[in-house]
């Protein structure tokens, strides 16, 4: 987890710096790493939700000879598919809002390059 790796870096940070890091700086680093980790967890949850909605949107589990039932002006299986896609749109927008896209590549961080 990201915050544990940042804890692991403490001695290294203290060793390199001329002055020891202040406790408030350390707390702020840990809490921002925790926030990032919880955002990443939430993002993964949202993406899993999207996968489930896609599976439900296709009426593979329905009888093909079922009588027509109209929901919200649409055949019921279409209304379910549409409801799923509305859900996908909302979850996907939320997932993008939680996505951190860095502007600079940090060495050692994925994506990787061959030969390293």
């Amino acid at each position: 987890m990201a915050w544990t790796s940042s804890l692991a870096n403490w001695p290294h940070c203290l060793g390199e710096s001329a002055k020891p890091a202040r406790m408030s700086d350390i707390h702020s680093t840990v809490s921002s790493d925790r926030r990032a980790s919880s955002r990443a967890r939430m993002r993964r949850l949202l993406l899993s939700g999207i996968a489930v909605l896609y599976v439900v949107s296709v009426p593979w589990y329905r009888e093909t000879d079922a009588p027509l039932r109209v929901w919200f002006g649409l055949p019921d299986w279409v209304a379910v598919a549409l409801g799923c896609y509305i859900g996908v749109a909302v979850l996907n927008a939320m997932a993008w809002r939680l996505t951190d896209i860095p502007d600079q590549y940090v060495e050692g961080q994925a994506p990787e390059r061959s030969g390293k």
Partner: protein
Amino acid sequence: MSFGEIGTAALVIYLLTLTGIAEVARRARKDTSAGDHFLAGRDLGTMVLFLTLYATAYSGNSLLAYPGKAYSSGFSFIMSTGFMMAIIVVFHVLAPKLRPIATTFHFVTPGDWVRHRFGGGAGSPEPGQRALVLGVGSLMCIALMNFLLAQLKAMGHVASIVTDGAVPYEFGVAGLAAFILFYETRGGMRAVAWTDAAQAILMLVGLSALFAWILDGAGGMDTVTRTVAKLRPEAVVVPDAKTCVGWFSTVALLGLGSVVYPQAIQRIYAARDGRTLANSFALMSFMPLATTLVVTLIGIAAIGLLGDIGQREADEVLPLLLASWAESGGVGQIGAVVVFVGALAAIMSTADSCLLSLSAMMAGDLLGNSGSDPTTAKRGKRFAAVLLVAMIPVAFIEELSLWRLLELKMELLLQCVPAFLMAIHWRAQRADATLAGLVVGTALSIGLTFSGFSRIYGIHAGMLGLTLNALVVVAGSTVMRRSIVTQSLTTQN
């Protein structure tokens, strides 16, 4: 005023507006580098990026062909909303990792990523790297040429319809192509993105107006569904197992294939920053509901409005609906013109993005020029001009059966997926294995399609090709990795 006169006036106003936008874009140019020309100086903000992504993703095909497909397939074409949304979902796999590396290493074309990824770090490139860049570049260029050709043909048709024949088909193709070339060479990506934004707004207004008119005339969606159930019961029944498999396959095909569209990848490079890109994608999530869903419902409503027009006429569903709207006179006439100009805008916005990406890839990936080379932008402009001049006579040919290869757009593009979506996550992936996968997957897709098996039990030939492609990449990379490790251990001993 007649429909043709209103249409001609609207077309002239539209083209004049685009000219103005292109001129402003030219003046906003910061330098003559490839990055400034092809990527707007990597400074596209949220709204412009969102609108250009939207206008590029929703081509003339979405507006003109989808109502016809919905008319033929019935309610199962609701899958189109799902597959258009899948594109923005699959970008989660690529954009967050590609963006930082693209900005750090100043990528301009998709091939820059392949070159970098298999570049071997400080040492020499991996075996097969150059061939892989060429292979990926060639497949992408073929797909883009297909796309561009389809847009040129559609431009000619729509220009002729909207002016009621005052602008003949051939003149529409050549004139509008020349116009695209004009604003693209003057303003580059900046002009393309800004005109795309204007075109996207026009497209949204036109579609919303048409849908409101149809629902108003039909008496609401409930009546539409019950009428369709009476006229074409098979259009409302729950799809069978084969259609459901095809539904999943189409979502995967479009979701994976569209993410590696070169113009989409270049927009990842062109965003001002990561937050801007994420916000634009968040907004894009809702656009299939505002566009694809609307055109699908328009096509379904046409079953009741137009009756049985036959399979051959299905592609003409939108023009037929607009003709009947225009006949109602007044607002209907103006509304029909707005939709036609909106369709033309959608077509032109896709064509200009294709042309810009094609010229960048030909100058960069196929000829091996670097994005930082100042002559790359100049070469790209020349390529754009040569390409358009070469493609215009081809677009004049109505029957294009000889160009079957070009119709394999998505199946071909799909074979580039391992070079991007897999390679960005899997460190052990090798260039030669990726090249082998690309060749085998492409051969299988083309072979199956030309043998008449474009789908096997609902699964697209391209998806089967991609599966084989990915298996070859995994097996090849694993075997080569092991042989390298064994070799280095033997050398050490």
